[in-house]
């Protein structure tokens, strides 16, 4: 059978098959499985059919729990149904999975296995999710490679039909879901032959139908439940054999034979590893390598983990086995061993006991953990396990791949152990996300994998920043299938696509001796040497690297490519690596360009082709001197004065050496210090803002809109300038309260991302040259050193006294220190200015409950985090629970605080005479409405604590009172107002968390909810949510969203006792500030829905503020505030803050790619949806106007 060869990643490989053999697909985005749903949706949108000729219906649900429910329903109605998920998503499906399995329903859930959040969230791969689902009754089939994903997607789909047991088809998140490899695709005829239509019809007939009704899903009593549960046993007992039969049939059709357990290695092996998942591939090549050297080692790959076929497992073991090492990619704290280990122990013990094992003596069996959260798993580690098995008393319950210096579980391994053959080309590319490096490498893999006989593999490592993120591409090409499921450790080609990386990273660490080193250099071949750090020069000389430069940005500039150097550097790679003859390679690159960009228009194709043609002219060999001459080294990662933890832990993570940190270095419970982004100087801006004090009106707008908190303002006495650096700028303060004082606006030069929003918002123009404003972008490099000094000086100036300032004015509140700074959000992010404002206004008294999403990633992803503290050490306390439960999480915080206040109040009342009536009364009845009130209360609480400490120390009180005193002392801070802010995106608030949000809002508790509404699931790549506007293109809405956006605000308004505001800081910053202050002041639940421009809207974010204005001016985003407190003042609680629309909706919409794209892909539908969208806006506006005109009614607070 001829099968098509293709290079693709695991997600695509899986989705291609799943789409062929299903009728209904219920999806919900979750990393790393989201692309499977996206592929399925795209196939259906393109009209691709399943093997029965119908287009599968793809439906996006509001949560994984919802997706599982929809799957269950579709299955009950007789449709062949699937879903894709991972991690917490799978856990949300568990209740339904028990039902689906209990009802013996055929289905396959395809799982890109991912860590379940514990001490921290992790998006990366391990088996903790599927292990948490192993009691559901779903079979579990593990695919270890991209080829196996293709094959097992089909095998599981065929097997579930015959066994009636539902399947989890599992492969490792990222390592397999995102690895690109060369595979043989399955021909439709193979798929057709594997799926038995008779079984499909039986499945359909088992579905609910009023034409032959029955009841399923009853409630059972103790009399029968147990027996009924056991009634399914025959199906589980038969399942392994059926799976083997299906595998055999598959082998007949494709030549690829799989077994329930596959053995690799010496037939007389004495030491055997048992493992499942992608690690088995590395184990495979390692065991083969060692066996070829005469070592008696072997490997059992577990394919079907559930039902665990004991007999087949025992049969797979060589009779000579003396020691077995079982490797689990999961951790079960407190268990006597991880799941696979326990299964193996049981199987072998039973086999030995009943003499069905091929050996009579019980072998030694040890179990260990490896690879949690995609931790590297290499041949060296496998060798370490095999070596351990040779010991008389091998270490059990070990870990491998880390240094556990606390409980000493870890095995040592030889990092130099390398089994990669010489005929495999191993290449590493360092790039920026924005320069297109990864895309180019994916293209190269396709070219080599599909145009040559070579096998090809690509795996890509990204950091967790959304702006200026560094990517490292690991590519292998070779004559045999590539099983190396670990990063390249010894590269014979290293390309560095950004010159600035040289000052930050040891980019030649992975270079093998004699490797080719290609550098994107603005310096000519005879100049570049002097610009390299000394250590790098030494490495080049010592490793005898062949050094080339290519001025990628010069070529990009000449050919209109801007900052994208993808095809340029790709051309350099092909020209130097010799994988293909250069002419053939160029032809192939151009073909790929046509294929990738052709539909975007000829201009784009021409531009890329020109870049390719120009690249070779700029590629030059560098003559390497015999000695290092440089007198500078790489920048230090963090300054010497950084705290110890930052020096010893954080800095290692920043440097990319976090793998080397021992267990003891890390906090035991996931607790990390606040405010660490300030230590990570990323220097990613090409240009930074420069202040012109002469024309600045000190309005604060640039500071307000700065998404990264890099623009700061201070007012201080001119005496402070005595020690100011020479270039430090200040001018007379233009504030009536600060006459005669100095004002300074300072930029953090190394933390700025160069987004330019500050310049856009600046209202002042230079009268002589209006192209200049009071703040202007200038190249960062020449300014860096001087501005670093200025920044350090600025930080040491005193902060302004918060009390007495009219904080409802931007001009004043921007004098407050932001307690959210330098996050890794996208350059120009539309969310972070709201968080920064929140931190400025209330940060010193706030606890933040943050839903999973963009804000939890830029807010809480290591190595460094942006929530920080003020001069007094106070600041927002932040935590993230899950995606779906954030409102509830925040409510829990609120009730805990409320309860503590009540408890503390009771104790204080009880002891007030001893403490002092006056102080107690003052504390208990204090107004805390203004900054001054709060400041005064802080003073009183300090006094209280002082008195309590004295009383405890004196010991004069009755001893029975001491516990109360100590308790009160520990709780005293609660008397100062505490805010709870519940923060998250629209995916949370409108979809997965809506039920909880609704409940929490309805609770009447004093919580503040901030919805950062980007109108899509931004963090997972722009999937449609119920906040997505009509006519916008989003993932899962490729043909434009047909339905209008949910009016979340009005749903909340309907309760009558919830403060609700819709804001857009770019359109009306004063209204935004008012809304924040009112929401916080309101003694009840509040909800702020904040327009957040986003990269997923498809336009240059520098224009984000203009776009916010257009959104408001067109009434797409009418601003309003609904304040129930107004009712008591006999005023209408609904205040419409927008003026009559003055812009047609299309003027707003068609500035954005998400709307324009539809006019290009579906012009007629776009016109129709535009019409409907305009109608939506008109109707809503009329309703709002009517509401605003109403006289106050009685729907106010109900207490």
């Amino acid at each position, binding site marked *: 059978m001829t099968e098509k060869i293709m290079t693709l990643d695991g997600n695509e490989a899986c989705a291609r098959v799943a789409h062929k053999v299903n009728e209904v697909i219920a999806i919900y985005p979750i990393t790393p499985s989201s692309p499977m749903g996206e592929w399925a949706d795209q196939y259906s949108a393109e009209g691709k059919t399943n093997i029965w000729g119908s287009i599968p219906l793809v439906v996006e649900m509001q949560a994984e729990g919802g997706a599982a429910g929809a799957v269950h329903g579709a299955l009950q109605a007789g449709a062949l149904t699937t879903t894709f998920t991972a991690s917490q998503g799978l856990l949300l499906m568990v209740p339904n999975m028990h039902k689906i399995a209990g009802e013996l329903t055929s289905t396959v859930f395809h799982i890109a296995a991912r860590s379940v959040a514990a001490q921290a969230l992790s998006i990366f791969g391990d088996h903790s999710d599927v292990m948490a689902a192993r009691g559901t009754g779903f079979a579990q089939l593990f695919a270890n490679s991209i080829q196996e994903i293709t094959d097992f997607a089909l095998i599981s789909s065929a097997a579930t039909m015959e066994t009636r047991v539902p399947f989890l088809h599992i492969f490792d998140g990222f390592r397999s879901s995102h690895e690109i490899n060369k595979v043989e695709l399955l021909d439709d005829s193979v798929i057709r032959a594997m799926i038995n239509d008779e079984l499909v019809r039986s499945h359909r007939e088992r579905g609910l139908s009023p034409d032959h009704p029955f009841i399923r899903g009853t409630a059972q009593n103790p009399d029968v439940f147990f027996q009924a549960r056991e009634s399914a046993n025959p199906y589980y007992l038969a399942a392994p054999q059926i799976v083997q039969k299906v595998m055999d049939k598959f082998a007949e059709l494709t030549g690829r034979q799989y077994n329930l357990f596959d053995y690799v290695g010496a037939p007389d092996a004495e030491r055997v590893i048992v493992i499942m998942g992608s690690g088995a591939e590395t184990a495979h090549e390692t065991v083969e390598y060692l066996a070829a050297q005469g070592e008696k080692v072997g490997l059992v790959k577990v394919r079907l983990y559930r039902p665990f076929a004991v007999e087949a497992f025992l049969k797979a073991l060589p009779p000579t086995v003396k020691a077995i090492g079982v490797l689990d990619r999961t951790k079960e704290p407190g268990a006597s061993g991880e799941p696979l280990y326990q299964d193996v122990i049981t199987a072998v013990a039973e086999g030995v006991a009943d003499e069905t094992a091929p050996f009579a003596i019980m072998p030694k069996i040890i179990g260990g953990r490896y690879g949690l959260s995609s931790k590297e798993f290499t041949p060296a580690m496998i060798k370490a396990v095999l070596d351990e098995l040779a010991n008389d008393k091998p270490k059990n319950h070990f870990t491998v791949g880390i240094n556990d210096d606390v409980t000493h579980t870890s095995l040592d391994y030889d990092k130099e152990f390398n089994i990669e053959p010489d005929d495999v080309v191993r290449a590493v590319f360092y790039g920026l996300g924005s320069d297109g490096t990864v895309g180019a490498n994916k293209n190269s893999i396709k070219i080599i994998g599909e145009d040559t006989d070579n096998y090809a593999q690509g795996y890509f490592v*990204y950091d967790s920043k*959304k702006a200026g993120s560094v990517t490292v591409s690991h590519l292998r090409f070779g004559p045999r299938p590539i099983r190396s499921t670990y990063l390249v450790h010894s590269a014979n080609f290293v390309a560095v696509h950004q010159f600035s990386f040289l000052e930050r990273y040891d980019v030649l660490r992975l270079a093998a001796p004699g490797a080719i080193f290609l550098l994107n250099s603005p310096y000519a071949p005879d100049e570049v040497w002097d610009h390299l750090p000394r250590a790098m020069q030494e490495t080049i000389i010592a490793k005898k690297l062949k050094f080339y430069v290519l001025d990628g940005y010069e070529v990009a500039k000449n050919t209109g490519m801007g900052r994208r150097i993808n095809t340029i550097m790709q051309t350099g790679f092909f020209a130097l690596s010799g994988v293909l003859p250069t002419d053939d390679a160029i032809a192939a690159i151009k073909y790929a360009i046509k294929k990738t960009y052709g*539909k975007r228009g000829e201009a784009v194709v021409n531009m890329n082709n020109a870049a390719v043609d120009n690249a070779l002219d700029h590629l030059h060999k560098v003559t390497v001197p015999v000695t290092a001459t440089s007198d500078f080294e790489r920048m230090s990662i963090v300054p010497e004065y950084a705290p110890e933890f930052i020096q010893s832990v954080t800095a290692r993570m920043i440097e990319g050496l976090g793998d080397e940190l021992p267990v003891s270095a890390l906090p035991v419970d996931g607790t990390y210090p606040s405010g660490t982004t300030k230590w990570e100087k990323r220097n990613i801006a090409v240009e930074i803002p420069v202040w012109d004090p002469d024309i600045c009106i000190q309005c604060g707008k640039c500071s307000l809109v700065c998404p990264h908190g890099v623009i700061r303002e201070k007012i201080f006495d001119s005496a402070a300038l005595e020690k100011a650096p020479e270039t430090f700028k200040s001018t007379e303060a233009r504030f009536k309260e600060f006459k005669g004082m100095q004002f300074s606006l300072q930029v953090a030069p190394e933390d700025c991302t160069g987004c330019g929003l500050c310049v856009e918002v600046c209202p002042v*123009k230079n009268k002589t040259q209006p192209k200049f404003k009071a703040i202007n972008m200038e190249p960062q490099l020449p300014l860096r050193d001087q501005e670093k000094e200025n920044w350090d000086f600025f930080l040491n100036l005193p902060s302004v006294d918060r009390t007495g300032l009219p904080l409802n004015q931007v001009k004043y509140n921007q004098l407050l220190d932001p307690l959210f700074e330098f996050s890794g959000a*996208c350059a120009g992010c539309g969310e972070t200015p709201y968080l920064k404002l929140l931190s400025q206004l209330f940060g010193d008294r706030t606890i933040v409950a943050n839903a999973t999403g963009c804000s939890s990633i830029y807010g809480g992803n290591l190595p460094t985090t942006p929530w920080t503290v003020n001069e007094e050490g106070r600041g927002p306390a932040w935590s993230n629970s899950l995606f779906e439960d954030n409102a509830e999480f925040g409510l829990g915080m609120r009730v805990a605080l409320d309860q503590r206040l009540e408890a503390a109040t009771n104790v204080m009342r009880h002891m007030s005479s001893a403490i002092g009536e006056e102080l107690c009364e003052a504390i208990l009845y204090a107004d805390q409405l203004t900054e001054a009130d709060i400041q005064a209360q802080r003073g009183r609480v300090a006094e209280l604590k002082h008195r309590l400490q004295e009383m405890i120390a004196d010991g004069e009180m009755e001893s029975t009172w001491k516990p109360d005193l100590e308790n009160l002392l520990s709780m005293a801070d609660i008397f100062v107002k505490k805010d709870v802010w519940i923060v998250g995106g629209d995916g949370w608030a409108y979809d997965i968390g809506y039920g909880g949000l609704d409940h929490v809002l309805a609770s009447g508790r004093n919580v503040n909810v901030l919805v950062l509404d980007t109108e899509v699931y931004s*963090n*997972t790549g722009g999937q449609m949510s119920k906040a997505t506007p009509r006519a916008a293109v989003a993932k899962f809405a490729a043909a434009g969203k047909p339905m209008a956006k949910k009016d979340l605000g009005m749903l909340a308004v309907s309760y009558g006792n919830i403060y609700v505001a819709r804001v857009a800081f770019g359109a009306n910053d004063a209204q935004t500030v008012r809304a924040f202050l009112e929401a916080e002041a309101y003694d009840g639940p509040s909800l702020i829905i904040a327009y957040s421009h986003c990269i*997923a809207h498809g336009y240059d974010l520098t224009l984000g503020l203009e776009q916010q204005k257009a959104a408001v001016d067109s009434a797409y985003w009418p601003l309003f505030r609904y304040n129930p407190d107004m009712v008591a003042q006999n005023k209408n609680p609904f205040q419409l803050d927008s003026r009559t629309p003055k812009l047609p909706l299309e003027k707003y919409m068609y500035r954005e790619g998400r709307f324009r*794209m539809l006019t*290009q892909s579906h012009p007629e539908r776009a016109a129709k949806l535009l019409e409907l969208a305009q109608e939506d806006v008109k109707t809503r506006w009329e309703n709002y106007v009517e509401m605003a005109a109403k006289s106050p009614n009685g729907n106010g607070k109900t207490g």
Partner: protein
Amino acid sequence: MDLSTTYLGLKLKNPLVPSSSPLTRSLDSLRRMEDAGASAVVLYSLFEEQITLESEMLNHYLTQGIESFPEALSYFPEAEEYHTGPEGYLEHIQRAKKALDIPVIGSLNGVSTGGWVNYARKIQEAGADALELNVYYLPTDMNLSSAEVEQIYLDILKDVKAAVTIPVTMKLSPYFSAMANMAKRLSDAGANGLVLFNRFYQPDLDPQNLEIVPHLVLSNSNELRLPLRWIAILYGRVAADLALTTGIHQVEDVVKAVMAGASITMIASELLQNGIERVGDLLTGLEQWLTEYEYESLEQMKGSLSQINCAEPAAFERANYMRVLSSYSR
């Protein structure tokens, strides 16, 4: 009354032709123009620069932020195809041809030589009866001489003429130092018509906000004078047909244009201001005017007040302020 005229070899029932404007984007408006009596229509321009820009923009927003962050390797679904090229415009020509009986004239604004030729050919293939080259070119380059600018016009015309068989007309700006010579050279180079004159959008200054702002001002009858003069001067001296555009609002404007020598009068601002149905009003008015002044046909008055036919040819060459004043006082 016989209002017929000939333009670019096309026999037209009257001289009223809606010119290239946003109104011609909608098929419904085109039908209404025909129903109101328009004798032909010039469609809105296909801008090569816009196609390039659209394509680059699409690429930009499909590329922005991708492959940077592990959870979001892209932000948009890829559609099977995008209409970034001239397809939409070409389909519009096809639909217009299907919907209308009157001639449909395509309009093109190119940038590159390849673009002019390629798109001209496609417009012909889509069924346009003629092609208007909208050479919207502002020579701001300090190193570009007038001779070089003129050559650009001639080259474009020659390239396009060599590529298509349908008649080609050139829409010109009035900013030539030797207008008459330029017109003659274009005519000699094969231009089937000259459309006088293109109105450039003149940006305005916003003194409060220190900004340059786009400011679209619709034409009025006063602006008729400039094209009127040049049509009168060129009439009978160049082989190309002459079309007058800019300033046609009233019946008298049409009459003047034809008397100066225009084969057709093009109209846009009037329709934008007062509706497409104004075509009918003007036609009725034109017929009444001809009847009232006892003309037998429109043809009879064509070019009657051109420079070669009028009683005082020098009047068209007067530029001096004083003389105009004296002429006015007389």
